[in-house]
Each structure stands twice: as structure tokens, then as C-alpha cells.
């Protein structure tokens, strides 16, 4: 490192330490879109890092990503509106914080999602709840060093598979908890195309989607909701190749240590032609006990599979994933997913999704019957409509029918802060 650069680094770090907490305080007043949509492949975006601060997509947008979000994602009702420039994206904060200039290297955002769920059950059919309350921040100290993460709130019942694993506070009941799904230090190289990150991060595996309850995500434990792990992630991005590898150190927001999973997760995605990608994923984790069913038995889980994205003409995108599931306590199983997305007009998407799951027959119970989803295939189908009706907002309605489960209608309104 050059002479004199250490004091400079120290000043930059101190400045960053002040800016990052302030960034989280500003989150509720910022308004820029942030999410991961694999069907963006049809607009020619093979690499998610073009628009997102994280190279595999999701969460924060770069300044370029904000421009693309404004011009491509949401419905436009007045053709005379010119698309905003990246400069305007940074000037967003000025009307509210005239005395404070947001540095170009600081990215902040958030996500608020309300849901109303209808289930065809004998009673208590309708439930309304805040599904997500998260803020995100990423601050670049020099061009090659970033600090960032998320903070949020959640309230889930005891035994819920959601949010718990990302808790910072220790309420084990059904009260509110502070969450941090991701937090990291990131070193970028190769003109920002590649990165090495240390912290709590999304697992690099399969299609990165927002539907965390989809079986391909829940059964492989690789969703963006709370399946993140602490570890070291290497991301490489080339013109027609993306590669991600994570050395998993375990989730240090989960106790005791015997329940923490350690291992690796990785994916490789190639783009043989414009608008089409093919990928492979692999994951192996081991814990001294299974957090889902803590006993004296150790728990090794594996998932290996393939995924694909393909733009079929201007309006259609096909997404698909299939994974082999190997688990210490189960016979081999599998999970699959296919999603046909149709953009009827800009900003309005219709989707037809099919799911398949057989997690494998249990080895723990002699003579246990094979049931759908465990020893026998289980099927699921979704019909979805999602409308980005105005910048920063979208609404979504899902009709979900899964074998041996009550019919569900899930309505969501989502604002990207």
C-alpha cells in the first residue's frame, strides 16, 4: 500500500462508519426500486450486477439500475415523461435533506411489503400482515471496498420457518425482532466485475427469486428470506459466464453451535446465446444436529441441480430449475420448478408456475408410509399476476394450489424505498 495511504484509509473508514448508520436512518425516506427478477434476461441483462449492488441480484440497485428500473420495469402512462438520468437518481434526496449531500458511493433503499392471505380452511380464513420491513445500505470506501447490509423488523409465531434465522434480537416468542439478513465487507476487482465478500450473504445457488416459499428455494434452504449464512463469497462475472462460490462458516445468529451448517454453495451459469442461460448449482452442508429436528443425529444435506432462463420472443420468459436432494435422514429426493412469465404490457406480468417435490422417504421411522412430498411426488401450481403500476410500487396476486394443502390466495402490495 502506498505511503500515506493508511491515514487516508483511516479517515475514509471513519467517514464510512458515520455514513452507514445515517444511511439506515434515511432508509424510510428514500425511494428506489430494489428486487431480483430473473426474467430481466429478456431485456438482455445476463449479469445481475449491472443493475444491483450484489452481482447475483436482489436488494440494492446501482444508479444505472435505478434508470433501468424506471424505464423498463414499471408501466408508463404518460409517454411525454422522459426517463430520469442517473444524476437525478442521486439528486432524489436533495429536496428532503438539502443540507446533506448523499455521496455517489452510497446506495440506500428498502422494501415494505403488506400481504393478505386467504386460505380455504374451516375457520380463520383471512389473515393480513406486514410481510417485510427492511432497509438496505451499501457504502463504497474507494472504488474497491464496500460495507453494507440490511436491517429490518419481523414478527412471526413460534415455530415459523421465516425470519427467525436472521434475528439479531433474542425474542423467541411471537413478538417483534430486529433482523439483519445480510451484512458484509466486499472487495471488488476486475473493474468491479468480480468481488470477494465476507459476512452474512445470500447463498449462490439456483435461480435468485423473490418467492421464498417456492419448493426449489425452501427445500434447498437457499432463499433470500432468511437462509443466508455467514461465510466468504467469491463472485466472478464475464460476458457469457457467471460463477459464484461460498465457503459457509455457519449462521452465527443461530445457537447453539451444533446446529450451524458448514460447507459450500456454488453455481455456474453460461449464456450460449443472447436471452438464454444454462446453469448448474451444488451445495453441501453439515451440522452436528439438524436445527429443524434437533436430536443426537448429525445432519448432512446436499442439493445439486440445473437451472435455465430463456427469453421466448418479446413477451415470454421461461425459467426452470431441478435439483437432486440428498439428506442424511432421508432417501434421495428431488424438487423442480418451471415458470412461464408473460408481460402483457409493460409492467404487467402474468405467470404460470408448476412445482414438483419429493423430499425423500424418511429413514428414521420403520414402516412409515410414503406420502406425497416424502416418498411420493407432490405437485403444486401457481397462477400469478404482478403489476408494477407506478414507479416504486407493485401489486401481486397469487392463486396457489398444492397437493394436500388448502387453496390459497395471496395478495401483496410492495413499495421499494
Amino acid at each position: 500500500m502506498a505511503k500515506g495511504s493508511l491515514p487516508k484509509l483511516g479517515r475514509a473508514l471513519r467517514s464510512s462508519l458515520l455514513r452507514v448508520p445515517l444511511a439506515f436512518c434515511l432508509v424510510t425516506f428514500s425511494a428506489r426500486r430494489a428486487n431480483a427478477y430473473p426474467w430481466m434476461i429478456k431485456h438482455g441483462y445476463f449479469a445481475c450486477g449491472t443493475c444491483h449492488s450484489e452481482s447475483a441480484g436482489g436488494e440494492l440497485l446501482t444508479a444505472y439500475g435505478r434508470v433501468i428500473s424506471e424505464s423498463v420495469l414499471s408501466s408508463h402512462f404518460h409517454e411525454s415523461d422522459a426517463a430520469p438520468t442517473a444524476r437525478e437518481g442521486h439528486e432524489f434526496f436533495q429536496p428532503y435533506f438539502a443540507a446533506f449531500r448523499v455521496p455517489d458511493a452510497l446506495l440506500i433503499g428498502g422494501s415494505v411489503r403488506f400481504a393478505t392471505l386467504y386460505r380455504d380452511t374451516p375457520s380463520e380464513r383471512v389473515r393480513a400482515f406486514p410481510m417485510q420491513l427492511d432497509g438496505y445500505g451499501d457504502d463504497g470506501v474507494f472504488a474497491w471496498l464496500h460495507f453494507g447490509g440490511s436491517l429490518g423488523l419481523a414478527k412471526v409465531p413460534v415455530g415459523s420457518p421465516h425470519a427467525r434465522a436472521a434475528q439479531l434480537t433474542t425474542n423467541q416468542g411471537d413478538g417483534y425482532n430486529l433482523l439483519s439478513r445480510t451484512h458484509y465487507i466486499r472487495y471488488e476487482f476486475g473493474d468491479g466485475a468480480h468481488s470477494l465478500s465476507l459476512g452474512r450473504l445470500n447463498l449462490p445457488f439456483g435461480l435468485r427469486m423473490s418467492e421464498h416459499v417456492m419448493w426449489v428455494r425452501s427445500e434447498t434452504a437457499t432463499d433470500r428470506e432468511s437462509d443466508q449464512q455467514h461465510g466468504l463469497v467469491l463472485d466472478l462475472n464475464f460476458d457469457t459466464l457467471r460463477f459464484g462460490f461460498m465457503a459457509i462458516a455457519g449462521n452465527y445468529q443461530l445457537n447453539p453451535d451444533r446446529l450451524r451448517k458448514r460447507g459450500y454453495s456454488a453455481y455456474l451459469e453460461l449464456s450460449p446465446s443472447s436471452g438464454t442461460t444454462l446453469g448448474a448449482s451444488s451445495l453441501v452442508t453439515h451440522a452436528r444436529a439438524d436445527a429443524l429436528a434437533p436430536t443426537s443425529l448429525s445432519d448432512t444435506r446436499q442439493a445439486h441441480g440445473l437451472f435455465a432462463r430463456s427469453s421466448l420472443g418479446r413477451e415470454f420468459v421461461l425459467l426452470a430449475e431441478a435439483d437432486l436432494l440428498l439428506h442424511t435422514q432421508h432417501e434421495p429426493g428431488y424438487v423442480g420448478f418451471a415458470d412461464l412469465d408473460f408481460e402483457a404490457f409493460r409492467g404487467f406480468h402474468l405467470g404460470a408456475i408448476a412445482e414438483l417435490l419429493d423430499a425423500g422417504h424418511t429413514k428414521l421411522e420403520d414402516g412409515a408410509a410414503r406420502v406425497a412430498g416424502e416418498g411420493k411426488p407432490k405437485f403444486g401450481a401457481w397462477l400469478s399476476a404482478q403489476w408494477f403500476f407506478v414507479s416504486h410500487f407493485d401489486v401481486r396476486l397469487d392463486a396457489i394450489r398444492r397437493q394436500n394443502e388448502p387453496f390459497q390466495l395471496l395478495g401483496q402490495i410492495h413499495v421499494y424505498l
Partner: protein
Amino acid sequence: MSRFNYSDKSMSTSSRVGRVLALLVVLQHASPSHAHPSFPSSLQSELSMPCTPACTICHKDNLGGFGTISEPFGKAMQADGLTFVEPSLGPALRKLEGAGTDSDEDGTGDVLELREGQDPNGALDLCGQAALAARYGCGARIAQSPSPRADLGGAATALLVALSLCVSHRRSARRRRLLRSHNG
């Protein structure tokens, strides 16, 4: 170019946003807000158990969920009327107790075993198991809010504030663009 040109027939963006705002308010007040059934803590409360049992007292793992009841006690409760909803828990327990159901056939009824912190499916100490269960978080706690309605009200207020700020930003951004184009 958009395949739909709304410029001649659509209402203004701010009017449209205002209608969405009203719809949001209606949705949040029209939909009943019920707490999700929390069977482990309800079971502890119902029987004054010494600890909160894990979901594996009935389910194959702590994810719970539909179609995953695999334990004898869970199946016995289903047979006595337990369904997806919390109000079915008490009547099912009383029926189980009245029938003297003993899922692990060890001579002690299921409900009595639960009251003593024992596993009705076998010889395990439930509260000892609870000590092995997952505990989440790093430190500190958040005080509980007074009511579920307050939770939704606070979140809805935050959403409405964000919505109004977005509308205000779009107007100011449009004014700046028009000014720049006018000044050439």
C-alpha cells in the same frame, strides 16, 4: 414504445396514486387481522407445561406445515378434532384426556405426560429437548407492541408516508425536467 398509450384517456398519475392510497387504507381495515396460530406456546399455556415444546411433538420437523404430522401424539390429536386453527387445540386436548389416550403405551396418559414436561411419543424429557432447541438472535430484546392493530396501523402509516413522498418526488422531478427542456 409502450404497447399501451394511456396519455389521452388515463387519469393523472397523482390521481391514480391517490386511488391506490385509498384502496390501501380500505384493505388494511377490511381484512381481519388474526395472529397466526402458535400451537407450541398455546399447548404450554393450555396445560401449564414447564416449557414450550418443539413442533416435532406432532410434526416431522420444526417447520411444521400442512400434511407433515407424523408423530403418534399429533395423529391422536388430529383424530380427536385438531385442525389448522388454534381454537381446535383445547377441545382436542380435553377429548384426548377424557379418553385416556396413551400414544407411547407407557402407562401414563399423553396429557399427564405433557403436564410433567415429558414427551407423549416416547421416553424423552421434553424440557431437556427444549434446551437443545434452536435459539435465535445475538442479544437484546424488543418490547412487545400493545396490540396487533397497532402493528398494522404503524406499518400502514409508514407506507402512506413513503407513498406521499414518492408522489412529491415525481412531481418535483417532472418540473425540473420541463424547466430544463424549456431553457433548452
